[in-house]
């Protein structure tokens, strides 16, 4: 068993699989599977605060570390500012890409509360959105950043 802090609570994950498989087996809806080869961003989680693809990473890498998924950032009762901002901007169409993107944005804003356009886009570059919601997503992150700085 791999012991880690999952969304703030102690957890024991089965070994011998990817972190993505282990997290989904815990009943979490995110991260999501999109490619399994670290090329789409759908499976990103925070590992010790860094946005990391979980689809090819052995779960063993989480031993003794903090793992946060979208669910761990906030929910309906206590939304994360990013979740509020994504709703305010209606940032998404099918929404499948959003979990990974919000997780990456959370890591970015923690490190850099006021990212310029280039660093914002660079941070999101591992993420695909095939619905073409890019501009709304960028607006939502800028909105959340402004709110979090205030």
């Amino acid at each position, binding site marked *: 068993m791999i012991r880690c802090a999952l969304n703030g609570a102690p957890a024991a994950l089965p070994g011998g699989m990817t972190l993505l498989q282990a997290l989904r087996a815990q009943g979490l*809806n995110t991260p999501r599977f*999109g490619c399994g080869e670290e090329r*789409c961003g759908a499976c990103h989680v925070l590992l010790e605060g860094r946005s990391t693809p979980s689809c090819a990473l052995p779960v063993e890498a989480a031993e003794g570390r903090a793992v946060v998924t979208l669910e761990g950032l906030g929910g309906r009762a206590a939304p994360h500012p990013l979740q509020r901002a994504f709703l305010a901007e209606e940032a998404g169409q*099918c929404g499948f890409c959003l979990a990974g993107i919000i997780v990456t944005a959370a890591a970015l804003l923690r490190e850099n509360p006021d990212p310029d356009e280039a660093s914002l886009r660079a941070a999101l570059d591992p993420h695909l959105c*095939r619905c073409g919601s*890019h501009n709304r997503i960028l607006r939502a992150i800028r909105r959340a950043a402004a709110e979090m700085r205030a």
Partner: protein
Amino acid sequence: MNLAFHGPAPEGEGGPRLPGSLRLNPRLEQWLAFHPDGTVTIRPGKVELGQGILTALAQIAAEELDLPPERIRIAPTVTGESPNEAVTSGSLSVQEGGMALRQACAEARARFLSVAAQASGAPLAAIRVEEGRFIGPGGEIGSYAAFAGRGLLAGEARGEAAPKPPAARRLAGRSLPRLDLPAKIFGEARFLHDLRLPGMLHARMIRPPRPGAVLVEAPAHPALWREGGFLAVIAETEAEAERLAPRLAAACRWQGGAEIPDDPQAWLDAAPGEESLVARHGAPPEGGRMLRRLFRRPFLAHGSVGTCCAVALWEGGVMRVWSHAQGPYNLRADLAKVLGLPEEAVVVEHREGAGCYGHNGADDVALDAALAARARPGRPVRALWTRAEEFASAPLSPAMAVAVEAVLDEAGTLASWRSHVRSNGHSGRPGRGAVPVLLAAPLLPGGRPVPPSQDAPLAGGGGAQRNQIPAYRTPHLEARMTRLSEMPIRCSALRGLGALIHVWAIESVMEELAAMAGEDPLAFRLRHLDDPRAREVLLAAAAMAGWEGRAGLPEGEGLGLGFARYKNSGAWCAVAAHLRAEERLRCLSLSIACDMGEVINPDGAENQLEGGALHAVSIALHEAVRIGEGRVLSDSWAAYPVLRFRDAPAVAVRLIARPEEPPLGAGEASMGPTIAAIANAVHQALGVRPERLPFTPENL
């Protein structure tokens, strides 16, 4: 609210004139149900693909019923219960489903109110509806909730109640927030991928290396299920299924099968096909200056971010399938054929998936799941595709070539337009023919090869010939198509179908003709357009983008225009693209003007138009399925580059408000014009006219 406008609608000859999908599904109970708690359930047959249709439908229902939108519940589409609205495609959901629901709700409301009037003696015209309560001159005289159990929805719609006139609408036309987004943003179980049934098993498939290859050896393993050439690894956990599948796949031996031609364009030029006339009018002119151009596009993939998924349960002689396919009834028909079951013994229930952008593998994976479920009776089985299957096993959008010959007369006016398109058919959807088209079907004992895909007739939107006819006035027109009769790669519908290449071809040739005539390309277009709605969107997009400043752009930059009326019967859309040539082409911004008639949810429409445009930027500048070594080489995102965040252009959208006009879809209208606008901007920036998609340095 006044009832004067709820009078009877004019009757057509031979029965009521019912709008959209209500014609084929006239029973009101199929569409909605009232509950004693004051809520209403609507049952659309059109499904949510990320386009926001559920929100628009809830707005339409709340509007006609005079209910707060929160009281509208939406039932997932289930075969046997929901109306059969065929496929959610072609930007028709509001036209077909929304207008049916609008009429059904108007009629439901009228029936309830007439009962309230009779029971209370209040004159019908004096009754208002407030939050679902019926208020007569002397106070409340009933409500939807109070009359819910009276069976008032029994029987068919009669087309007797007219929906509210545009000026009376309060909800339809407002940007209500999307109903499905919160769950997705909070990570709740909303996607099919998150459906977890008790005792659920997990399946991953092993595919033949080439279409038609025969399985000669498969390892014996308790987790490996074999039925003819169909192989599925079925395990208790996802991790186990994913660990075993590649191992067992490596131990399988296959023989034969068809090689895919290495040079798809050469194959496209030489392959046998059926030629037909799409449209013709007038006689060829004498004289004039002729322009001949050939446009080519590669095979394209849908490239959904989530891979295809389905859950199936075989129990008590019934196959129940949860699917994100676009046409639950169509899928049911093919599943029943393959499984040898009557259609009633197959239930397909829709759950949302990732955006699909057309006919991807959503139907195919449902058969995979059903076959695996039949191997494990009583246990639900969830099948999920790999990224490689998503590219190499799903239907692709076919490579195409369009030849155009246009003649400009002495006065610089278009005198003749001929075009000829070569392509595989664009529709290989299930449920339409005698032979099932699902991926695994030919692999099963007695399975038959998937027949070549078809094209709908032009009047039904067309496929390869969609938007082949220019909107521009021409005294002579001849449009022909050759639908290839062999199909080495399974092909089907991708957002926009043939419109993507035709709009580009038309708009590129029009600009060249304008140059031959020595005229500004916008003025040249306007001189050939009679339709005022077409002219208006073109002028609007040009104004948004600062068309008059075009000549002053720095070297290496370009501003291009593109216009089309989608399907020649849908939304009018014009796009201006601003582009800069760096080591690759970079689209900096898009200005989109669209007239889509009545708009139910403006923010949703803008979202769709922008999404379609960015999809088109990706197609214009990045996308091509790689083929070689006799197979599809694109099996990962590395081998199928798409638009990413660093390259996403800024987008401005302007909707031309026409609340009096019938609503038209927004999901595809901006795509062809965007590709065309980019191509025309490339010409200004680099002096070359692109003839091959995508517009990469190699292809220019």
